[in-house]
């Protein structure tokens, strides 16, 4: 990641979504935090980089968790990590897609991304679990 434009754009997108969910206007949110509406606009657009204390206040004002406003790496580089799917998953996708090639593609991509997201967040102990290793082979 050479610069962090993508990161702040994604933070802004998440903020906007949380704000809309709460039914708050940019104006109202700005007032609550004592900042200008332009700041809210710019932060949501990713043009302005909100410092941690402001993000922290924003998460409170928007009734969300701070960690939900911070993108995970795979959200920023979606193709960076995809994981192979088990045969049962592949079969399930084909069924759900009625064998339509485009739908299969979309579903396969998403499923492997979600699988990757799980594995990133909870490193599995595959290497020292002989049962699983054997079943795989």
């Amino acid at each position, binding site marked *: 990641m050479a610069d962090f434009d993508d990161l702040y754009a994604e933070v802004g997108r998440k903020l906007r979504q949380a704000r809309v*969910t*709460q039914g708050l206007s940019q104006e109202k949110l700005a007032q609550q935090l004592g900042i200008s509406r332009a700041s809210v606009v710019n932060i949501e657009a990713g043009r302005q980089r909100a410092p941690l204390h402001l993000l922290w206040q924003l998460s409170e004002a928007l009734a969300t968790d701070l960690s*939900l406003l911070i993108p995970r790496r795979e959200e920023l580089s979606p193709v960076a990590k995809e994981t192979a799917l*088990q045969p*049962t998953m592949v079969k399930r996708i084909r069924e759900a897609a009625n064998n339509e090639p485009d739908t299969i593609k*979309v579903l396969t991509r998403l499923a492997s991304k*979600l699988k990757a*997201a799980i594995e990133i*967040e909870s490193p*599995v102990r595959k290497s020292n679990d002989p049962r699983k290793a054997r079943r795989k082979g």
Partner: protein
Amino acid sequence: MTREKLEEKAEKTLRETDTYRIPIAIEVLAHRLNVAIQSEALGDNVAGMLVVEGNRGAIGYNSTHALVRQRFTIAHEISHYLLHVRKNQKSQLFIDRHLTFRRDGYSAGGVDFEEVEANQFGAALLMPRSLVRQEIKRSDLDLDDEEAIIFLAKRFHVSTAAMSNRLSNLGLLR
């Protein structure tokens, strides 16, 4: 699970994760249940998906759908996660193509029991029975007036159709 059990479980889930207030913060709920969330443009045919590995889950939903629809999809996938994950299976995948509300709570497919249940439970998560009743009372709403339903839908951040179905399923509409 009976309707009554579903209602109770939905409310309990919200209380235990400290998300029992409107509008329900459905993404926060997922997060607190240890379920990752990711949005992506999925074309017209796919609403969302749930992948489960062991005791962890991840939900993907269609970012091109209207926000209220995205919320419904997330609630639907959370429902699968809480109700339909089989403990002894390592990996599981739930795929939801067209999720639509029907008056009777049945999905477009209508035949799949788990889909019907996920729709009911999802509605109970986004529009908890007691909070709906409380809001009607608090704002002194006359449900014969369509404006009242629109108002409620806005408060709970759901579509008017979803709210209308919910009120009807709760026996609050004539």
